[in-house]
């Protein structure tokens, strides 16, 4: 299992692994549950070596029953434990929908029971996973009260947000993007750190158009910004990092500065996170806007498998470039 080492570059995937390891060492209430996380070390090997280090009760292989083990995570959390349950793929979170939205999301409101539960959900496309290994299901939970949602885009955030999620007294769904697992890396601090939930980051400062995005789309926005810079169009890229709590102030400040906004996400368009952000901008930043709010998102279809179809489906740099050119000329 990867441990924090000074000066060494750490992948997004290793950062997640480090966060789990360090939190389990720091707090004996933290334990893991999920399918194939013990002996096998997880479908993506994030918990490789954990079984030997922490034993089968803290790295608990569960039956194939997402509703059952998420419910069990809720019960353990109510009793003061800090469970981190793993969806093998975020797609399977639909099996646990009821436990998450109806039980975990309402418990504190109903009878003041804290539910310090983290649900790790490897999500997103670009890996030829087809309709059931590529989904971005954050929109379902974004609409559901009582849940926090984080969507790290960098290795630093992957570690810091997971630690903060584990220490939070509320249910947190931690969407980790599969496409980023081994594609990005950076040197992380050796000392313990967290990234607070609900604080966005401006990844690139710009003056012309704000691109509000998260997850793997942060890189699509940054690539588009590089291309457009050559044409004299200066994009600002806001990485939300958390969807709930949503850092409205950072988003509004950016749009008030640039006067134009593109909301970009990989999830499909209708009723998605982007729709809410566009509505918020219309309500709160109308006087600052100097052009229509533009949404770039996947089409309202299941996620197709074959390479040309998937490439068509997932928003890409050229989509952002085209939309930004049009908006800049507005």
């Amino acid at each position, binding site marked *: 299992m990867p441990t924090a080492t000074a000066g060494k570059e750490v992948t997004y995937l290793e950062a997640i692994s480090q966060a789990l390891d360090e939190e389990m060492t720091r707090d004996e209430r933290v*334990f893991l549950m999920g399918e194939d996380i013990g002996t096998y070390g997880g479908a993506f090997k994030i918990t490789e070596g954990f079984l030997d280090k922490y034993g089968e*009760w*803290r790295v*608990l292989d*569960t*039956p194939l*029953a997402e*509703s*059952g*083990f*998420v*419910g*069990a*995570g*809720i*019960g*353990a*959390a*109510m*009793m*003061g*434990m800090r*469970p981190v349950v793993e969806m093998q793929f975020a797609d399977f979170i639909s099996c646990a929908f*009821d*436990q998450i939205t*109806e*039980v975990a999301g*309402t*418990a*504190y*409101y*109903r*009878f*003041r*029971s*804290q*539910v310090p539960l983290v649900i790790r959900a490897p999500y997103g496309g670009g890996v030829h996973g087809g309709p059931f290994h590529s989904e971005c299901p954050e929109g379902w939970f974004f609409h559901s*009260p*009582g849940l*926090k949602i984080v969507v790290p885009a960098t290795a630093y955030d992957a570690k810091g947000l997971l630690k903060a999620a584990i*220490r*939070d*007294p*509320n249910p947190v769904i931690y969407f980790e993007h599969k496409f980023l697992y081994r594609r990005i890396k950076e040197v992380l601090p050796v000392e313990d750190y*967290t990234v607070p939930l609900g604080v966005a980051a401006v990844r690139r400062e710009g003056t012309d158009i704000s691109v509000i995005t998260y997850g793997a789309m942060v890189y699509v926005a940054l690539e588009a910004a590089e291309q457009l810079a050559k044409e004299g169009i200066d994009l600002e890229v806001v990485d939300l990092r958390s969807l709930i709590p949503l850092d409205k102030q950072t988003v509004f400040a950016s749009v008030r500065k640039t006067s134009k906004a593109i909301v970009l996400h990989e999830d499909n368009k209708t009723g998605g996170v982007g729709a809410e952000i566009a509505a918020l901008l219309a309500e709160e930043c109308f006087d600052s806007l100097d052009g229509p709010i533009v949404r770039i998102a996947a089409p309202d279809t299941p996620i197709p498998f074959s390479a040309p179809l998937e490439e068509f489906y997932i928003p890409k740099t050229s989509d952002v470039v085209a939309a930004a050119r049009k908006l800049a000329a507005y």
Partner: protein
Amino acid sequence: MDLATVAKEIKPADLLQMYYYVRLTRTLEDRITALYRQGRIMGGVYTSNGMEAISVGYASALERDDVIAPYHRDMGAFLLRGITPGEVFAQYLGKKTGPTRGKDGNVHLGDLKRGIIGFVSHLADNLPVATGAALAFKLRDESRVVVTNTGDGGTSRGDFHEALNFASVRKLPVVFFCNNNQYAYSTPLRYQMAIRDVVERAKAYAMPGEIVDGNDVAAVYLAAKRAIARARAGEGPTFIEAKTMRMHGHSEHDAAKYVPRELLEEWKKKDPILKAEQILTQLGYADEAKFREVQERAKKEVEAGLAFAEQSPLPEGPETLEGVFAEERDL
């Protein structure tokens, strides 16, 4: 339950206390039903009429630090865990003094300080949650047990099966009760499952199961006690099917015309209060005068509770916005 076993296994004072709680549950829920008919209750009323012995029986077998994850026909267990009739009325009247401060209604009670995991209307959802609470106890090596309950209908849900399976695989200290009251809303058992006894479901999970007379508080108590002892000893979960009859509709708005009258007449003879009184009389623990005294006491407690709830304030509209998220507790 044969008298010799009851005499040997249950102290007279304990049995009298169970009788008191069966009586208190009936008195309380009858009063709530009466208020409902007068239009004085907010929303629906779900009673455990005719089934009071089940939750009184299992809750009487628990230790103070144990936990329950009930469903909507467990009023006796709420009372035994320390929820007062006043709080129950406050909950039904949407008052601020109810355990959910008006955020949820009727029997959707919960209070972890008193070892009660609140339930949601989605039946069987509390079974995985109960399993997880039991897992926490096992992980911390605590000698605590969880008892959870659902109806016959609830056993059709996936969560029921996922919970029993997981609990059995990991030998968790949890007891699964099933209140088999013959009807899930209007659906009779024969359209709910192809098996005759719900307890057969336990076999699939290599879990010991037993059928108990759900109208006999002594029998329920002893079955629960055995199962709880097993769980506490680390021997894993038990499934208990308590056979009973729902004597009212699913909710008080439901006249339950789909239930044959003869069936209700037959079960009326097996009323849990009558049954408890027979046992107490035959064992010489109590007589008619004592029963009247208990009834009076229950009535007084219920009326005092109603007065408390009626005097309690309603929540203010903007309180809607409070308490969606818990605050940081140990950052």
